[in-house]
C-alpha cells in the first residue's frame, strides 16, 4: 500500500514556499488595477477643472444672447444655439421614427435568413464609420448632388443618417428586453403581428427606446466634424429661419473660437464648452429620469 494522502498533524497546511510572495504580488496587482481605474477618474476631473477655471469668468447672460462678434467680450452663442436647435429637432424628426421602425422590422418582422443577417451586419458597420465620413456623404449627396447648398436641411439630413444606426441598435436592445410571454399572450388571443407590436411590445419598450434616442441625440449635439464638412458656415450673423438658411452650431462656434490664437477667444471657448456640457448633462439627466420613472413601474 502506498502512503496515505491525508495530511499528518505535523505537516499542517500552513503557508509555506512562495505563498507569501504570491500574496504580496497579488496585492501589488490590486493596487495597479486601482491606479489604472483612478487614472480615468483623474483625467475627467483635471479636464473639467481646467475648463471651468478657464471659462467660469466668461460665463454671462450675454454669452447666451449675443450674436458672434470679432470682439471676444461681445461675442455670444445665440446664433449657434438656434442652429443647434434647428439641426437637432430636424434630425430627431427624421431619425427617430425611421430608426425605431427599422428596429421593429429587425426584431419583430424580419425572417431569420441571410438578408436579415446582412442588414444587421450592415447596421453595426455603419455605427463604426467615422463621423467625418458621414460629413463627406452629406457634402456629396445633399449639398452637391441634390444641390441644397450649405443649409439647415442638408446638415440635419447628414446628422440623421449619422444617428440612425445608433438609434436602431439602442431600440433593438430595448425591444429585445421585452419578454416573449407578452407577445405570446397577445398572439394567443388572436392579435395580428402589427397589433402585438403597436399596442403591446412598443409601449413596453418605449422607455428603453427613449433612453437610447436621447443618448444618440446628445452625441449628435456634440458632433463637430460632420457638420464642418457638410456645410455649417463659419460666420453667420442671423438665426436660421427655415430649412434653406445657412447655420452654425454650438460646437462649430466653439471650434472657431478655439482656432483663434488670442487667449481671450480661448477663454471664451472654455465658457462655450461649459454651456455645451450643461446642455449634454441635462439631456443625460432626462434620460436617467425617463429610465427610472418607467422601469419602476414595470417588472417582468
Amino acid at each position: 500500500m502506498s502512503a496515505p494522502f491525508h495530511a499528518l498533524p505535523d505537516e499542517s497546511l500552513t503557508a509555506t514556499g512562495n505563498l507569501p510572495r504570491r500574496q504580496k504580488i497579488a496585492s501589488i496587482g490590486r493596487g495597479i488595477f486601482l491606479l489604472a481605474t483612478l487614472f480615468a477618474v483623474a483625467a475627467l476631473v483635471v479636464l473639467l477643472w481646467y475648463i471651468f477655471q478657464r471659462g467660469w469668468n466668461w460665463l454671462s447672460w450675454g454669452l447666451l444672447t449675443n450674436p458672434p462678434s470679432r470682439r471676444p467680450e461681445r461675442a455670444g452663442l445665440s446664433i449657434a444655439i438656434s442652429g443647434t436647435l434647428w439641426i437637432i429637432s430636424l434630425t430627431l424628426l427624421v431619425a427617430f421614427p425611421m430608426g425605431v421602425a427599422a428596429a421593429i422590422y429587425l426584431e419583430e418582422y424580419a425572417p431569420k435568413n441571410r438578408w436579415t443577417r446582412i442588414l444587421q451586419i450592415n447596421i453595426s458597420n455603419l455605427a463604426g464609420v467615422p463621423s467625418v465620413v458621414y460629413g463627406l456623404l452629406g457634402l456629396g449627396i445633399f449639398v452637391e448632388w441634390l444641390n441644397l447648398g450649405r443649409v439647415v436641411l442638408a446638415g440635419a439630413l447628414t446628422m440623421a443618417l449619422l444617428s440612425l444606426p445608433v438609434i436602431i441598435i439602442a431600440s433593438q436592445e430595448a425591444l429585445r428586453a421585452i419578454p416573449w410571454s407578452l407577445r405570446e399572450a397577445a398572439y394567443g388571443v388572436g392579435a395580428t403581428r402589427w397589433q402585438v407590436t403597436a399596442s403591446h411590445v412598443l409601449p413596453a419598450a418605449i422607455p428603453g427606446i427613449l433612453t437610447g434616442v436621447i443618448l444618440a441625440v446628445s452625441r449628435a449635439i456634440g458632433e463637430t466634424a460632420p457638420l464642418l464638412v457638410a456645410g455649417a458656415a463659419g460666420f453667420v450673423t442671423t438665426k436660421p429661419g427655415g430649412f434653406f438658411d445657412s447655420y452654425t452650431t454650438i460646437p462649430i462656434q466653439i471650434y472657431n473660437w478655439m482656432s483663434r490664437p488670442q487667449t481671450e477667444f480661448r477663454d471664451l471657448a472654455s465658457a462655450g464648452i461649459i454651456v455645451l456640457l450643461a446642455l449634454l448633462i441635462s439631456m443625460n439627466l432626462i434620460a436617467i429620469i425617463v429610465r427610472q420613472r418607467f422601469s419602476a413601474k414595470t417588472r417582468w
Partner: protein
Amino acid sequence: MPFFRPGQSYVDANLLRRHHLTEKTAGYILLACAVVSVLTTIGIVVVLLAQALNFFADVSVVEFLTGTEWTALFQNQQQWGVLPLVSATLMVTLLSLVVAIPIGLMSAIFLSEYASPRTRAILKPVLELLAGIPTIIYGFFALTFITPEILKRLWPQTSVYNVLAASIAVGIMIVPLIASLSEDAIRSVPSSMREGAYALGATKLEVSTRIIVPAALSGIVASFILATSRAVGETMIVALAAGAKAQMVTNPLEPGETMTGYIVQVVSGDASRGTSIYYSLFAVGLLLFVMTLALNIFSHWFVRRFREEYE
C-alpha cells in the same frame, strides 16, 4: 337572428381583409426604413468612389498610395502622396492605444473582479461621462493643457502642435470604450471558472490574469480592434492639437497631419468645387473608410471565430 352553426365563419370578412391590408402595409413601411441603412452604405461608397475617381483622373493611384510628399495646398506644385497623412494617422493610433489599452483593460478587470458594488456604482458612470464628452473638448484640452502644461515641461522642444498631445487625448477618449467592452467580455466568463481557480488556492491576481483574461480574450481583443478603428477615424482632437503640417511623422513631439485632420483643414478654408483639392477630400475619405471598415469587419470576424461559448 344570430344562430351559430358549424361550418359557418363567425369572423367578419371585411375586418379580416382590413387587418390583412394593415399588416402588409406596416410590414413594408418598416422594411423600407430598415433598407435606408443599406442605402446609406451604398451612398457612402458611391459618393466616395465617384468623387475619388475625379481625383484619380488627375493623379495616378500609384502616386497617391506610395508618394511621401503631400503638398495639396501649395499652388502649382501640388504633390499627392498620401503616406505622410497615413503615417500621422498610424502614429496617433499607435500611441493612443499605448495609453488606452493598459488603462482600459486594467480598469475593466478592476471594475468586474475587484470593485465592490458601491465602488462600481460610482466608477462606472464616471467612465460613461468620459465617453460622452464631445471630442472637440478633448482637442481643446490637448492643445491648451496637455501640450503646454505637461509635454513642454518634460520636453521643452515640443511644438505647439504635436502628435503626442493629440494621441494622449485620443487615448483618454477611447479608454471608456475598451473598458466597457472588455468588462462585458469579462463578465460573461462563468463564475464557476473563477471558483474552480480559487478552490485550487489561486490568488485574485492569478485568477484575473491567468483564468479570466484568457477566457475573455476574444471579446477583449475585439474591443482593442474597435478602439483602433475609433482612433483612426477620430477627427476633431487631431485637427485641433496635431497641427496641419503634412510630413512623415517620426518624432511625436513634432506636428503631423492625419487623414481626418487634412479633411478638416480643407473644409475650414475654401475648397471650391471641381478642384483637385476638393476631390482629394473624397480620395482621402475613401481610404479612411476602407481602413475603418476593414478593422470593423476584422473585429466581428475575430469574435465569431475565437469566441468560447460557456454554458
